[in-house]
């Protein structure tokens, strides 16, 4: 199993702690100018959803999570659960909203997702790092204000809400970083 040093730490890393698989959901690098760096991470148990705070210092390392990952296609969401299919074996699995978590708001039909299996059972999914979605609602932006950092709220086709630059219009397609939920760029204009 892979081992990760502090310089490998990033959001989305899957690690094994106290014998269970965890996902790194947040990290903070803290360091007094002359002193020792502290890597503070928040990890979420991929089975129970429990979130823990951990500190590490340079030179420390964590084992990679003892999980398997498989590319599967998102099919649909029924009344409650999310359904995925393996494109080769046509094997289908389902995940509960709790297992899918925040990722659910970026899923569109036929999207390739990474499904995580632990002890043979699917436990969670990660959508691609970037998804392109159409803007279904946003207020018109002010003209001539295309360079500043000013942002406004927008809703995309999956129903998710995020902040976008003011020059984004209804029906534009925007690229979103699913790890942060932040706008990346405009892919096409309406």
């Amino acid at each position, binding site marked *: 199993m892979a081992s990760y040093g502090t*310089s490998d730490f990033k959001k989305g890393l899957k690690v094994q702690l106290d014998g269970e698989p965890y996902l790194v959901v947040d990290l*903070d*690098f*803290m*360091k*007094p*100018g*002359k*002193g*020792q*760096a*502290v890597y*503070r991470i928040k990890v979420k148990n991929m089975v129970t959803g429990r979130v*823990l*705070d*951990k*500190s*590490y*210092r*340079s*030179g*420390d390392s964590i084992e990679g999570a003892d999980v398997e990952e498989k590319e599967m296609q998102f099919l649909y969401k029924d009344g409650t659960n999310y359904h995925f299919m393996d494109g080769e074996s046509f094997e289908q699995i389902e995940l509960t909203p709790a297992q899918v978590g925040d990722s659910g708001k970026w899923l569109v039909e036929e999207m390739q997702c990474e499904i995580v299996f632990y002890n043979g059972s699917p436990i969670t999914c990660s959508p691609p790092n970037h998804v392109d979605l159409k803007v279904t609602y946003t207020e018109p932006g002010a003209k001539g204000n295309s360079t500043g*950092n000013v942002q406004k709220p927008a809703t995309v086709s999956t129903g998710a809400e995020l902040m976008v630059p003011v020059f984004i219009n209804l029906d534009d397609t925007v690229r979103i970083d699913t790890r942060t939920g932040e706008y990346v760029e405009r892919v096409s204009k309406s």
Partner: protein
Amino acid sequence: MLRARARMLRDVRDFFATLGVLEVDTPIIGDGLVVEAHINPVPCQVHSGADGPLPRHLLTSPEGPMKRLLAAGSGAIYQIAHAFRDGEEGRRHSTEFTMLEWYRPGFDHYELMAEVEALVQTLVPRTSGSAFTRRSYREIFMEGADIDPFATSLAELRATCERIGIPLPPNFEHGSLDDALDLLLVSHIEPTLGKPGPTFVHDYPASQAALAQVHKSNDGHDVAQRFELYVDGIELANGYHELANAEEQRRRFEQANRDREASGRSPLPIDEPLIASLQNGFPACAGVALGFDRLLMIATGAKRIADVRCS
């Protein structure tokens, strides 16, 4: 942001021009380094004629070259320099960053603190309402965590972290006392410093002196003549009443290299010309390094250093 940065660069130059402090521009690729236990340089290679590749480093601060100028009789100098620290990436850290560093012959660290205060008040007008407060390292630990940093132990620091809810790193017991104090500082005390107004922290333990002189404090502890400035929980500047003793400086660099090796990192080449200059004309002076990007964060309200780096 580009304009805010340009304005602040201009304000810095105006501030020092008025005081008659000379701007300098020293090399950022170096052979030897100011060796510190917890600061890692970015290695690079250069090719020079038939020689090469030669191992070099991007400097972690312009301190070495600037001190050589001081020894050569430059008088008061400042520099707006790019500095490089490998592996430092975060909300307030960037591997490459801009540092404002200056030296004042004839000043002690208290006189320099007053000048830092004047500069910050000029550049960030909202900090000019009242005088910056001053707190000793001992006071911030007593007030923030009920710990006397000069009379504590790993066991007490462990208990304090557990009481406050700071997760302990896996090898807490193998770290030094300073490592444990650093953990408590960044995790718990630092976020409260410099609020509501900016705060200078001074009288650091002698073990954290780096390049500062050491003397006896009023309460009888060996303390470094070193200060840090905090604004809104952000560490902004680090200053010293500069050590001018070549032998002692070499001893500290060698100690830093032993600390590096003990924690599995490679030792670094010592800046020999710097050591030589300390024996040869180096004036009594105080010096300070201020994180220019962080000052710009404070001035503009930016939450991440990446937002002010114009990259």
